């Protein structure tokens, strides 16, 4: 009796392996899936005004509290104003620089690792899979510590000594998790291409390399852009991590500036609030754009 209900003609035989171009159900929890843009969704789910109002509120609230103290909130904001060129010019620019280089290295290595994951050679596939899982599931801070403390600060090649600046080491450290996640993005995107495309190009006597580079990757390139941008936004938000290791960026420099100004506690909210504000106005448009692209590309498949 029950069997009769389970078998709906034409609808019961859904399997993952089919050469029909079926629309797969949305999987909110499968990480690495190309449509998995939880971070961007979260970031854009709030109105930009909310964040600005919040920023103003936390900044202005102390005025009421600190009205009587000698170091007024106006003084605090004036101090921020004086330090602004330093905090932005030497600090936030550094965050952006770290994020650019990390993304560059992470993407290049990630694409290679992702292609390794779909290699026909079993050892290559297994090593790529293991590397991906290893760095995808490690805390970023631990990876950063390992790279920062184990990498040499200079390399001797013959008689020349090349010094590696701190921020460069930070770039290497952050590249590892980005590499692993981009690897999953590539693998997921390649697997999202219908098997019919593989069969068609195989039956036209394309080699596997030709199939991947001429047929498969051009088709999933668009699908990779939104998750790639999603990871860029996550990475940018994560760059202040390197301040724990003494690399000069916005948080490190804000703290130095506050110390130079006698560590007034009133300075905390303007300075760190300003840092938050900068990250927000940088990452929010990226997240918006990501979702827009995702929407555009997902319609036309």
């Amino acid at each position: 009796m029950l069997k009769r209900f389970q078998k709906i003609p034409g609808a019961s035989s859904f399997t993952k392996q089919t050469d029909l171009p079926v629309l797969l159900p949305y999987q909110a929890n499968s990480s690495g899936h190309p449509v998995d843009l939880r971070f961007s969704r979260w970031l854009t789910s709030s109105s930009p005004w909310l964040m600005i109002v919040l920023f103003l509120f936390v900044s202005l609230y102390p005025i009421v509290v600190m009205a009587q103290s000698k170091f007024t909130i106006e003084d605090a904001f004036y101090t921020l104003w004086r330090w602004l060129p330093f905090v932005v010019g030497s600090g936030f620019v550094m965050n952006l620089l770290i994020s650019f280089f990390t993304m560059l290295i992470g993407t290049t290595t990630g694409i290679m690792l992702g292609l390794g994951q779909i290699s026909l050679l079993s050892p290559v596939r297994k090593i790529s899979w293991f590397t991906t899982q290893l760095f995808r599931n490690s805390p970023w801070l631990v990876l950063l510590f390992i790279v920062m403390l184990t990498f040499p600060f200079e390399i001797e090649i013959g008689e020349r000594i090349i010094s590696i600046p701190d921020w460069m080491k930070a770039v290497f450290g952050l590249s590892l998790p980005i590499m692993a996640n981009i690897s999953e993005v590539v693998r997921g995107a390649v697997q999202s291409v219908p098997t019919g495309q593989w069969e068609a190009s195989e039956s036209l006597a394309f080699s596997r390399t030709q199939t991947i580079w001429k047929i498969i990757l051009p088709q999933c390139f668009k699908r990779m852009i939104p998750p790639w941008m999603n990871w860029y936004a996550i990475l940018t938000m994560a760059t202040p991590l390197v301040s724990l290791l003494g690399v000069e960026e916005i948080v490190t420099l804000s703290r130095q500036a506050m110390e130079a100004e006698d560590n007034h506690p009133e300075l905390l909210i303007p300075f760190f609030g300003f840092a938050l504000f900068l990250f927000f106005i940088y990452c929010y448009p990226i997240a918006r754009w990501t979702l827009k692209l995702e929407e555009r590309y997902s319609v036309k498949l």
Partner: protein
Amino acid sequence: MTTNNWTPDQPIVSVKDVHKSFGKLEVLKGINFDVMKGEVICIIGPSGSGKSTLIRCINALNGINSGSIKVHGLEVNDPNLNKLELRKNVGMVFQQYNLFPHKTALENIMMAPMLVLKESKEEVRAKAEALVSKVRLDDKKNSFPGELSGGQQQRVAIARSLAMNPDVMLFDEVTAALDPETVKEVLVTIQDLASEGMTCILVTHEMGFARELADHIYFTDRGVIVEHGPPATFFEKAKDPRTKEFLSQIL
């Protein structure tokens, strides 16, 4: 590579005692047939009878478990088979067209000769233009697959396979996904091909077409060839009860 000792008096495709299983499910249980150059063969049968699997084995999209398939002298069931060499000789058209969506119709046709056969671009372009005319799509050659109807896409797919100058064409239920009114334009294209002497192996549900065009019809059910013969005998004097039942349902 297998030495190519094929001569025109031998069958261009020779299938002998082919067995094929997916896991425990045996879908082909000893299939035999020969196709001579220029012949048109139709394979018909109920769904799940192994027709598509059989045709996909011929260009090694699916491997076989035992038996032998020889195409133009190349043994398909050979671990050292040069699959690319085989597939240069065998064109295949799919039910779902499988055109490359990021390329225009003309580019779809030009890709394989340029990348696989390494022919010059001008040469390939001239050939592709001729093929586009042949499938009557001159005005659509710069359209992307997404802008074409199913029938038009399928004709581009046929032209794409022809661009490789294959000896044998495989058609895997090429009209099954089409609207009834566009089926005809695709069938006419195949008919043209057959009349030019192309060897065609079709898996099809178009009985009228099979009767008119095929030199030989094979009826498969549950992994075996139940009955076969030239269309006249096959459709009028079917002997096997399974064939009779199938034909009574479909005609």
